[in-house]
Protein backbone atom coordinates (compact mmCIF):
# COMPACT_ATOMS: atom_id res chain seq x y z
CA UNK A 1 0.00 0.00 0.00
CA UNK A 2 2.83 2.41 0.91
CA UNK A 3 4.64 1.47 -2.32
CA UNK A 4 1.46 2.17 -4.29
CA UNK A 5 1.09 5.53 -2.58
CA UNK A 6 4.61 6.65 -3.50
CA UNK A 7 4.25 5.23 -7.02
CA UNK A 8 1.09 7.30 -7.33
CA UNK A 9 2.87 10.44 -6.12
CA UNK A 10 5.64 9.82 -8.66
CA UNK A 11 3.18 9.23 -11.51
CA UNK A 12 1.25 12.36 -10.50
CA UNK A 13 4.46 14.45 -10.50
CA UNK A 14 5.45 13.07 -13.92
CA UNK A 15 2.02 13.85 -15.31
CA UNK A 16 2.20 17.42 -13.99
CA UNK A 17 5.62 17.83 -15.62
CA UNK A 18 3.93 16.97 -18.94
CA UNK A 19 1.00 19.28 -18.23
CA UNK A 20 3.00 22.41 -17.43
CA UNK A 21 4.63 22.91 -20.81
CA UNK A 22 4.16 25.62 -23.39
CA UNK A 23 1.01 24.83 -25.41
CA UNK A 24 1.60 23.78 -29.04
CA UNK A 25 -0.80 26.47 -30.27
CA UNK A 26 -1.76 29.39 -28.02
CA UNK A 27 -4.94 30.15 -29.95
CA UNK A 28 -6.19 26.60 -29.41
CA UNK A 29 -5.24 26.82 -25.74
CA UNK A 30 -7.22 30.07 -25.30
CA UNK A 31 -10.26 28.54 -27.00
CA UNK A 32 -10.07 25.48 -24.76
CA UNK A 33 -9.60 27.73 -21.71
CA UNK A 34 -12.76 29.71 -22.47
CA UNK A 35 -14.68 26.49 -22.96
CA UNK A 36 -13.43 25.12 -19.62
CA UNK A 37 -14.28 28.38 -17.83
CA UNK A 38 -17.82 28.02 -19.13
CA UNK A 39 -18.06 24.32 -18.30
CA UNK A 40 -16.27 24.21 -14.95
CA UNK A 41 -16.79 27.79 -13.76
CA UNK A 42 -19.91 29.49 -15.12
CA UNK A 43 -21.95 26.31 -14.88
CA UNK A 44 -21.07 26.09 -11.17
CA UNK A 45 -22.45 29.53 -10.29
CA UNK A 46 -25.95 28.20 -9.61
CA UNK A 47 -24.97 25.57 -7.08
CA UNK A 48 -22.45 27.89 -5.41
CA UNK A 49 -25.10 30.63 -5.10
CA UNK A 50 -27.76 28.39 -3.56
CA UNK A 51 -25.29 26.72 -1.22
CA UNK A 52 -23.80 30.03 -0.08
CA UNK A 53 -27.10 31.78 0.68
CA UNK A 54 -28.33 28.91 2.84
CA UNK A 55 -24.93 28.38 4.42
CA UNK A 56 -24.86 32.06 5.47
CA UNK A 57 -28.40 31.78 6.83
CA UNK A 58 -27.59 28.66 8.86
CA UNK A 59 -24.37 30.13 10.26
CA UNK A 60 -26.26 33.24 11.38
CA UNK A 61 -29.03 31.22 13.05
CA UNK A 62 -26.59 28.93 14.87
CA UNK A 63 -24.37 31.82 15.95
CA UNK A 64 -27.39 33.79 17.19
CA UNK A 65 -28.59 30.83 19.25
CA UNK A 66 -25.14 30.39 20.80
CA UNK A 67 -24.67 34.09 21.56
CA UNK A 68 -28.13 34.75 23.01
CA UNK A 69 -26.85 36.60 26.04
CA UNK A 70 -28.03 40.12 27.01
CA UNK A 71 -24.42 41.07 27.82
CA UNK A 72 -23.17 40.31 24.28
CA UNK A 73 -23.98 43.01 21.70
CA UNK A 74 -26.12 41.71 18.82
CA UNK A 75 -23.66 42.83 16.18
CA UNK A 76 -21.21 40.20 17.51
CA UNK A 77 -23.43 37.64 15.76
CA UNK A 78 -22.74 39.37 12.45
CA UNK A 79 -19.00 39.59 13.18
CA UNK A 80 -18.85 35.86 13.96
CA UNK A 81 -20.89 35.05 10.85
CA UNK A 82 -18.62 37.18 8.67
CA UNK A 83 -15.44 35.56 9.99
CA UNK A 84 -16.84 32.04 9.72
CA UNK A 85 -17.97 32.53 6.14
CA UNK A 86 -14.84 34.35 4.97
CA UNK A 87 -12.26 32.22 6.72
CA UNK A 88 -13.73 28.77 6.40
CA UNK A 89 -17.14 28.16 4.97
CA UNK A 90 -16.84 29.84 1.59
CA UNK A 91 -13.30 28.80 0.63
CA UNK A 92 -13.33 25.30 2.12
CA UNK A 93 -16.92 24.07 2.03
CA UNK A 94 -17.59 25.50 -1.42
CA UNK A 95 -14.31 23.99 -2.68
CA UNK A 96 -15.38 20.62 -1.28
CA UNK A 97 -18.65 20.93 -3.19
CA UNK A 98 -16.71 21.93 -6.32
CA UNK A 99 -14.45 18.91 -5.83
CA UNK A 100 -17.59 16.81 -6.15
CA UNK A 101 -19.11 18.62 -9.09
CA UNK A 102 -16.05 19.65 -11.09
CA UNK A 103 -13.71 16.85 -10.00
CA UNK A 104 -16.04 14.08 -11.11
CA UNK A 105 -16.66 15.92 -14.39
CA UNK A 106 -12.93 16.19 -15.12
CA UNK A 107 -12.15 12.59 -14.15
CA UNK A 108 -15.04 11.07 -16.08
CA UNK A 109 -14.47 13.12 -19.24
CA UNK A 110 -10.74 12.33 -19.32
CA UNK A 111 -11.38 8.70 -18.37
CA UNK A 112 -13.87 8.30 -21.19
CA UNK A 113 -11.39 9.84 -23.62
CA UNK A 114 -8.76 7.39 -22.38
CA UNK A 115 -10.86 4.23 -22.72
CA UNK A 116 -12.25 5.30 -26.11
CA UNK A 117 -8.66 5.82 -27.36
CA UNK A 118 -9.16 9.56 -27.98
CA UNK A 119 -6.07 10.28 -25.88
CA UNK A 120 -4.10 7.70 -27.88
CA UNK A 121 -5.30 9.43 -31.05
CA UNK A 122 -3.88 12.74 -29.79
CA UNK A 123 -0.57 11.09 -28.90
CA UNK A 124 -0.29 9.45 -32.32
CA UNK A 125 -0.80 12.85 -33.94
CA UNK A 126 2.11 14.20 -31.92
CA UNK A 127 0.00 16.28 -29.52
CA UNK A 128 1.10 16.47 -25.89
CA UNK A 129 -2.26 15.16 -24.71
CA UNK A 130 -1.67 15.93 -21.02
CA UNK A 131 -0.87 19.54 -21.79
CA UNK A 132 -3.65 19.88 -24.36
CA UNK A 133 -6.40 18.39 -22.19
CA UNK A 134 -5.42 19.13 -18.60
CA UNK A 135 -3.73 22.54 -18.61
CA UNK A 136 -6.87 24.47 -19.70
CA UNK A 137 -8.88 22.74 -16.96
CA UNK A 138 -6.40 23.64 -14.22
CA UNK A 139 -5.89 27.22 -15.44
CA UNK A 140 -9.66 27.72 -15.78
CA UNK A 141 -10.09 26.75 -12.14
CA UNK A 142 -7.17 28.81 -10.92
CA UNK A 143 -8.71 31.85 -12.64
CA UNK A 144 -12.39 31.29 -11.95
CA UNK A 145 -12.59 29.64 -8.53
CA UNK A 146 -11.49 32.85 -6.73
CA UNK A 147 -14.39 34.63 -8.48
CA UNK A 148 -16.76 31.90 -7.32
CA UNK A 149 -15.49 32.19 -3.75
CA UNK A 150 -15.86 35.99 -3.68
CA UNK A 151 -19.39 35.50 -4.98
CA UNK A 152 -19.94 32.85 -2.32
CA UNK A 153 -18.75 35.15 0.48
CA UNK A 154 -21.01 37.94 -0.75
CA UNK A 155 -24.06 35.68 -1.05
CA UNK A 156 -23.29 33.98 2.28
CA UNK A 157 -23.25 37.34 4.03
CA UNK A 158 -26.46 38.31 2.25
CA UNK A 159 -28.09 35.04 3.31
CA UNK A 160 -27.07 35.67 6.91
CA UNK A 161 -28.38 39.25 6.71
CA UNK A 162 -31.76 38.14 5.37
CA UNK A 163 -32.18 35.15 7.72
CA UNK A 164 -31.11 37.09 10.83
CA UNK A 165 -33.47 39.96 10.04
CA UNK A 166 -36.40 37.88 8.81
CA UNK A 167 -36.35 35.55 11.83
CA UNK A 168 -35.87 38.41 14.29
CA UNK A 169 -32.55 37.08 15.58
CA UNK A 170 -30.60 40.26 14.80
CA UNK A 171 -31.77 43.51 13.26
CA UNK A 172 -30.72 44.46 9.75
CA UNK A 173 -28.90 47.48 11.15
CA UNK A 174 -26.92 45.45 13.69
CA UNK A 175 -25.98 42.99 10.97
CA UNK A 176 -24.57 45.75 8.78
CA UNK A 177 -22.70 47.23 11.75
CA UNK A 178 -21.24 43.82 12.58
CA UNK A 179 -20.24 43.06 8.99
CA UNK A 180 -18.28 46.35 8.82
CA UNK A 181 -16.75 46.34 12.29
CA UNK A 182 -13.03 45.45 12.59
CA UNK A 183 -12.98 44.13 9.06
CA UNK A 184 -9.55 42.72 8.16
CA UNK A 185 -8.90 42.64 4.39
CA UNK A 186 -6.12 40.10 5.00
CA UNK A 187 -8.73 37.49 5.85
CA UNK A 188 -10.18 37.80 2.37
CA UNK A 189 -6.69 37.50 0.94
CA UNK A 190 -6.17 34.38 3.08
CA UNK A 191 -9.45 32.93 1.73
CA UNK A 192 -8.29 33.55 -1.83
CA UNK A 193 -4.90 31.91 -1.20
CA UNK A 194 -6.71 28.83 0.07
CA UNK A 195 -9.07 28.92 -2.89
CA UNK A 196 -6.22 28.97 -5.41
CA UNK A 197 -4.52 26.05 -3.65
CA UNK A 198 -7.79 24.08 -3.61
CA UNK A 199 -8.43 24.88 -7.27
CA UNK A 200 -5.07 23.37 -8.17
CA UNK A 201 -5.78 20.32 -6.01
CA UNK A 202 -9.21 19.73 -7.58
CA UNK A 203 -7.98 20.21 -11.15
CA UNK A 204 -4.77 18.25 -10.93
CA UNK A 205 -5.87 15.30 -8.78
CA UNK A 206 -9.10 14.78 -10.73
CA UNK A 207 -7.22 15.01 -14.01
CA UNK A 208 -4.65 12.48 -12.78
CA UNK A 209 -7.42 10.05 -11.76
CA UNK A 210 -9.16 10.36 -15.14
CA UNK A 211 -6.10 10.47 -17.37
CA UNK A 212 -4.57 7.29 -15.94
CA UNK A 213 -7.70 5.12 -16.21
CA UNK A 214 -7.17 1.62 -17.57
CA UNK A 215 -10.11 -0.55 -18.55
CA UNK A 216 -13.67 0.41 -19.39
CA UNK A 217 -16.82 2.06 -18.10
CA UNK A 218 -16.57 0.55 -14.61
CA UNK A 219 -13.03 1.86 -14.18
CA UNK A 220 -14.13 5.33 -15.35
CA UNK A 221 -16.76 5.28 -12.58
CA UNK A 222 -14.16 4.22 -10.02
CA UNK A 223 -11.80 6.96 -11.22
CA UNK A 224 -14.55 9.53 -10.86
CA UNK A 225 -15.21 8.44 -7.27
CA UNK A 226 -11.48 8.38 -6.49
CA UNK A 227 -11.12 11.88 -7.89
CA UNK A 228 -13.72 13.26 -5.50
CA UNK A 229 -12.47 11.35 -2.45
CA UNK A 230 -8.79 12.16 -3.00
CA UNK A 231 -9.49 15.81 -3.81
CA UNK A 232 -11.56 16.20 -0.65
CA UNK A 233 -8.89 14.56 1.50
CA UNK A 234 -6.18 16.72 -0.04
CA UNK A 235 -8.28 19.86 0.50
CA UNK A 236 -8.82 19.04 4.16
CA UNK A 237 -5.11 18.37 4.64
CA UNK A 238 -4.14 21.54 2.77
CA UNK A 239 -6.65 23.51 4.84
CA UNK A 240 -4.87 22.51 8.02
CA UNK A 241 -1.39 23.21 6.61
CA UNK A 242 -2.30 26.57 5.06
CA UNK A 243 -4.18 27.76 8.12
CA UNK A 244 -1.25 26.91 10.33
CA UNK A 245 1.25 28.53 7.95
CA UNK A 246 -0.69 31.71 7.23
CA UNK A 247 -2.70 32.49 10.35
CA UNK A 248 -0.54 30.87 13.01
CA UNK A 249 2.83 32.09 11.73
Amino acid sequence: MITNFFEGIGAYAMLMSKVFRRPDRWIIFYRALLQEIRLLGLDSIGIVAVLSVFMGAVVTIQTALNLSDPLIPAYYIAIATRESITLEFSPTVVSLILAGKVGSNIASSLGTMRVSEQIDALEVMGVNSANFLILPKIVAQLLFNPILIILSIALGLWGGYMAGGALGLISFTDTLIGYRMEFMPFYTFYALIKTVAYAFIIGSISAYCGYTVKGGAVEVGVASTNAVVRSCLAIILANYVLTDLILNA
Partner: protein
Amino acid sequence: MIQVKGIYKQFGENQVLKGVDVDFIPGKTNLIIGRSGSGKTVFLKTILGLYDPDQGSIHYGDEVLGEMTKERRMLLRQELGMVFQGGALFDSMTVAANIRFPLEMFSNMTEHQKDERVSFVMDRVRLQGSGDMFPSEISGGMQKRVSIARAISMNPKYLFCDEPNSGLDPETAIVIDQLIQELTHEFNMTTIVNTHDMNSVLEIGDHVVFMKDGYKVWEGTNNEVLGSTNADVEEYVFKSKLFKQVRVALRK
Protein backbone atom coordinates in the same frame (compact mmCIF):
# COMPACT_ATOMS: atom_id res chain seq x y z
CA MET B 1 10.19 1.86 -45.09
CA ILE B 2 9.27 0.53 -41.67
CA GLN B 3 11.39 -2.31 -40.34
CA VAL B 4 10.69 -4.09 -37.09
CA LYS B 5 13.62 -6.02 -35.65
CA GLY B 6 13.18 -8.57 -32.89
CA ILE B 7 10.72 -6.76 -30.67
CA TYR B 8 9.57 -8.12 -27.35
CA LYS B 9 6.86 -6.64 -25.16
CA GLN B 10 5.65 -7.82 -21.80
CA PHE B 11 2.82 -6.58 -19.54
CA GLY B 12 3.31 -7.90 -16.01
CA GLU B 13 3.72 -11.65 -16.39
CA ASN B 14 2.16 -11.69 -19.84
CA GLN B 15 4.75 -11.83 -22.65
CA VAL B 16 2.73 -10.44 -25.56
CA LEU B 17 5.38 -10.06 -28.27
CA LYS B 18 8.14 -12.64 -28.51
CA GLY B 19 10.74 -11.41 -30.98
CA VAL B 20 8.86 -10.19 -34.05
CA ASP B 21 10.76 -9.24 -37.23
CA VAL B 22 8.88 -7.70 -40.16
CA ASP B 23 9.82 -5.46 -43.10
CA PHE B 24 6.73 -3.58 -44.25
CA ILE B 25 6.58 -2.88 -47.98
CA PRO B 26 6.53 0.85 -48.84
CA GLY B 27 3.55 2.12 -50.86
CA LYS B 28 1.58 -1.08 -50.27
CA THR B 29 -1.18 -2.31 -47.98
CA ASN B 30 0.46 -4.49 -45.34
CA LEU B 31 -1.93 -6.62 -43.30
CA ILE B 32 -1.29 -8.15 -39.89
CA ILE B 33 -3.68 -11.00 -39.26
CA GLY B 34 -4.21 -13.42 -36.40
CA ARG B 35 -6.69 -14.44 -33.77
CA SER B 36 -7.84 -12.14 -30.98
CA GLY B 37 -5.11 -12.09 -28.35
CA SER B 38 -2.32 -12.92 -30.80
CA GLY B 39 -0.62 -9.58 -30.07
CA LYS B 40 -1.65 -7.64 -33.19
CA THR B 41 -2.85 -4.48 -31.45
CA VAL B 42 0.13 -4.36 -29.08
CA PHE B 43 2.39 -4.88 -32.09
CA LEU B 44 0.74 -2.00 -33.96
CA LYS B 45 0.83 0.32 -30.96
CA THR B 46 4.49 -0.53 -30.38
CA ILE B 47 5.33 0.38 -33.99
CA LEU B 48 3.48 3.66 -33.46
CA GLY B 49 5.49 4.40 -30.32
CA LEU B 50 2.50 4.25 -27.96
CA TYR B 51 4.30 1.39 -26.19
CA ASP B 52 8.07 1.15 -25.84
CA PRO B 53 9.41 -2.30 -26.73
CA ASP B 54 11.30 -4.19 -23.99
CA GLN B 55 13.82 -5.39 -26.60
CA GLY B 56 14.36 -4.89 -30.32
CA SER B 57 14.04 -1.83 -32.53
CA ILE B 58 11.66 -0.12 -34.93
CA HIS B 59 13.16 1.65 -37.93
CA TYR B 60 11.46 4.43 -39.86
CA GLY B 61 13.72 4.76 -42.89
CA ASP B 62 17.22 5.25 -41.52
CA GLU B 63 16.06 6.30 -38.08
CA VAL B 64 15.44 4.13 -35.03
CA LEU B 65 12.29 5.12 -33.15
CA GLY B 66 13.76 4.49 -29.71
CA GLU B 67 16.83 6.63 -30.43
CA MET B 68 14.96 9.68 -31.73
CA THR B 69 14.87 12.87 -29.70
CA LYS B 70 11.49 13.90 -28.31
CA GLU B 71 11.28 16.69 -30.88
CA ARG B 72 12.06 14.36 -33.79
CA ARG B 73 9.57 11.83 -32.48
CA MET B 74 6.88 14.51 -32.36
CA LEU B 75 7.70 15.47 -35.96
CA LEU B 76 7.59 11.83 -37.04
CA ARG B 77 4.16 11.46 -35.49
CA GLN B 78 2.88 14.14 -37.82
CA GLU B 79 3.82 11.79 -40.67
CA LEU B 80 1.66 9.04 -39.19
CA GLY B 81 -2.07 8.62 -39.57
CA MET B 82 -3.99 6.20 -37.40
CA VAL B 83 -7.47 4.74 -37.70
CA PHE B 84 -8.46 3.29 -34.34
CA GLN B 85 -10.71 0.29 -33.87
CA GLY B 86 -13.48 2.36 -32.29
CA GLY B 87 -12.79 5.41 -34.45
CA ALA B 88 -11.47 7.46 -31.48
CA LEU B 89 -13.22 10.54 -32.82
CA PHE B 90 -13.37 13.56 -30.53
CA ASP B 91 -17.02 13.41 -29.57
CA SER B 92 -17.23 17.07 -28.56
CA MET B 93 -16.28 18.14 -32.10
CA THR B 94 -18.22 17.97 -35.36
CA VAL B 95 -17.10 15.74 -38.22
CA ALA B 96 -15.44 18.69 -39.98
CA ALA B 97 -13.72 19.85 -36.78
CA ASN B 98 -12.36 16.34 -36.20
CA ILE B 99 -10.83 16.28 -39.68
CA ARG B 100 -9.56 19.83 -39.33
CA PHE B 101 -7.98 19.21 -35.92
CA PRO B 102 -4.51 18.02 -37.09
CA LEU B 103 -4.37 20.93 -39.53
CA GLU B 104 -5.16 23.39 -36.73
CA MET B 105 -2.47 21.89 -34.53
CA PHE B 106 0.38 21.38 -36.95
CA SER B 107 -0.04 23.11 -40.29
CA ASN B 108 0.72 26.68 -41.23
CA MET B 109 -2.11 26.77 -43.74
CA THR B 110 -4.41 29.76 -44.00
CA GLU B 111 -8.03 29.28 -42.91
CA HIS B 112 -9.07 29.09 -46.56
CA GLN B 113 -6.46 26.40 -47.30
CA LYS B 114 -7.62 24.41 -44.28
CA ASP B 115 -11.24 24.66 -45.47
CA GLU B 116 -10.19 23.44 -48.90
CA ARG B 117 -8.17 20.56 -47.48
CA VAL B 118 -11.04 19.45 -45.22
CA SER B 119 -13.45 19.66 -48.13
CA PHE B 120 -11.09 17.67 -50.38
CA VAL B 121 -10.55 14.94 -47.79
CA MET B 122 -14.27 14.71 -47.02
CA ASP B 123 -15.04 14.35 -50.71
CA ARG B 124 -12.35 11.71 -50.99
CA VAL B 125 -13.92 9.51 -48.32
CA ARG B 126 -17.44 10.33 -49.57
CA LEU B 127 -18.58 12.33 -46.55
CA GLN B 128 -19.96 15.37 -48.35
CA GLY B 129 -22.66 17.15 -46.40
CA SER B 130 -21.83 15.55 -43.04
CA GLY B 131 -19.42 18.19 -41.78
CA ASP B 132 -21.76 19.72 -39.21
CA MET B 133 -22.82 16.44 -37.64
CA PHE B 134 -21.37 15.06 -34.43
CA PRO B 135 -19.82 11.56 -34.23
CA SER B 136 -22.75 10.33 -32.14
CA GLU B 137 -25.14 11.29 -34.97
CA ILE B 138 -23.53 9.21 -37.72
CA SER B 139 -23.35 5.49 -38.47
CA GLY B 140 -20.42 3.20 -37.62
CA GLY B 141 -19.31 3.10 -41.26
CA MET B 142 -19.35 6.89 -41.46
CA GLN B 143 -17.38 7.12 -38.22
CA LYS B 144 -14.71 4.90 -39.74
CA ARG B 145 -14.60 7.13 -42.83
CA VAL B 146 -14.27 10.24 -40.64
CA SER B 147 -11.44 8.51 -38.81
CA ILE B 148 -9.74 7.72 -42.13
CA ALA B 149 -10.29 11.30 -43.31
CA ARG B 150 -8.72 12.68 -40.13
CA ALA B 151 -5.81 10.25 -40.48
CA ILE B 152 -5.00 11.37 -44.04
CA SER B 153 -5.72 15.09 -43.58
CA MET B 154 -2.04 15.85 -42.99
CA ASN B 155 -1.05 13.75 -46.02
CA PRO B 156 0.89 11.21 -43.94
CA LYS B 157 3.63 8.87 -45.17
CA TYR B 158 2.36 6.02 -43.04
CA LEU B 159 -1.22 4.97 -42.35
CA PHE B 160 -2.07 2.55 -39.53
CA CYS B 161 -5.49 0.95 -39.15
CA ASP B 162 -6.53 -1.17 -36.19
CA GLU B 163 -9.37 -3.45 -37.32
CA PRO B 164 -10.94 -0.75 -39.49
CA ASN B 165 -13.99 -2.80 -40.44
CA SER B 166 -14.81 -4.43 -37.14
CA GLY B 167 -18.49 -4.06 -36.28
CA LEU B 168 -19.46 -3.17 -39.85
CA ASP B 169 -21.78 -5.05 -42.19
CA PRO B 170 -19.96 -6.96 -44.99
CA GLU B 171 -20.88 -4.43 -47.68
CA THR B 172 -19.65 -1.42 -45.69
CA ALA B 173 -16.56 -3.38 -44.65
CA ILE B 174 -15.63 -3.90 -48.30
CA VAL B 175 -16.19 -0.19 -49.01
CA ILE B 176 -13.80 0.69 -46.16
CA ASP B 177 -11.21 -1.86 -47.37
CA GLN B 178 -11.35 -0.54 -50.91
CA LEU B 179 -11.10 3.03 -49.65
CA ILE B 180 -7.97 2.19 -47.65
CA GLN B 181 -6.38 0.55 -50.68
CA GLU B 182 -7.31 3.39 -53.04
CA LEU B 183 -5.88 5.99 -50.67
CA THR B 184 -2.71 3.94 -50.13
CA HIS B 185 -2.01 3.88 -53.85
CA GLU B 186 -3.22 7.42 -54.54
CA PHE B 187 -1.07 9.06 -51.83
CA ASN B 188 1.73 6.47 -52.02
CA MET B 189 1.49 5.74 -48.32
CA THR B 190 2.81 2.72 -46.47
CA THR B 191 -0.28 1.27 -44.88
CA ILE B 192 -0.37 -1.25 -42.06
CA VAL B 193 -3.74 -2.78 -41.22
CA ASN B 194 -4.58 -5.05 -38.28
CA THR B 195 -7.46 -7.34 -39.07
CA HIS B 196 -8.91 -10.78 -38.56
CA ASP B 197 -11.27 -10.44 -41.48
CA MET B 198 -10.33 -12.86 -44.27
CA ASN B 199 -12.33 -10.84 -46.81
CA SER B 200 -9.98 -7.90 -46.13
CA VAL B 201 -6.98 -10.17 -46.53
CA LEU B 202 -8.09 -11.36 -49.94
CA GLU B 203 -9.36 -7.92 -51.01
CA ILE B 204 -6.42 -5.65 -50.15
CA GLY B 205 -3.54 -7.71 -48.72
CA ASP B 206 -0.53 -6.74 -50.82
CA HIS B 207 1.63 -8.11 -48.01
CA VAL B 208 0.21 -10.32 -45.26
CA VAL B 209 1.84 -11.13 -41.90
CA PHE B 210 0.28 -13.87 -39.78
CA MET B 211 0.81 -13.70 -36.03
CA LYS B 212 0.14 -16.30 -33.37
CA ASP B 213 0.82 -16.10 -29.62
CA GLY B 214 3.20 -13.16 -30.03
CA TYR B 215 5.26 -14.69 -32.87
CA LYS B 216 5.26 -13.97 -36.59
CA VAL B 217 4.37 -17.35 -38.03
CA TRP B 218 4.04 -16.64 -41.75
CA GLU B 219 4.19 -13.87 -44.33
CA GLY B 220 3.23 -13.64 -47.99
CA THR B 221 0.65 -12.05 -50.28
CA ASN B 222 -3.13 -12.34 -50.51
CA ASN B 223 -2.66 -14.64 -53.49
CA GLU B 224 -0.43 -16.96 -51.49
CA VAL B 225 -2.44 -17.13 -48.28
CA LEU B 226 -5.04 -19.61 -49.57
CA GLY B 227 -2.32 -21.94 -50.81
CA SER B 228 -0.15 -21.73 -47.70
CA THR B 229 0.99 -25.07 -46.32
CA ASN B 230 1.68 -23.59 -42.88
CA ALA B 231 -0.53 -25.52 -40.46
CA ASP B 232 -1.35 -22.47 -38.30
CA VAL B 233 -2.32 -20.37 -41.32
CA GLU B 234 -4.41 -23.18 -42.75
CA GLU B 235 -6.21 -23.66 -39.45
CA TYR B 236 -6.90 -19.90 -39.20
CA VAL B 237 -7.92 -19.32 -42.81
CA PHE B 238 -10.09 -22.37 -43.33
CA LYS B 239 -11.91 -22.26 -40.02
CA SER B 240 -15.23 -21.04 -41.43
CA LYS B 241 -17.61 -23.17 -43.50
CA LEU B 242 -17.31 -20.73 -46.37
CA PHE B 243 -13.55 -21.02 -46.58
CA LYS B 244 -13.69 -24.80 -46.11
CA GLN B 245 -15.81 -24.87 -49.27
CA VAL B 246 -13.32 -22.54 -50.95
CA ARG B 247 -10.55 -25.01 -50.08
CA VAL B 248 -12.53 -27.88 -51.55
CA ALA B 249 -13.10 -25.85 -54.71
CA LEU B 250 -9.42 -24.94 -54.92
CA ARG B 251 -8.35 -28.58 -54.65
CA LYS B 252 -10.64 -29.71 -57.47
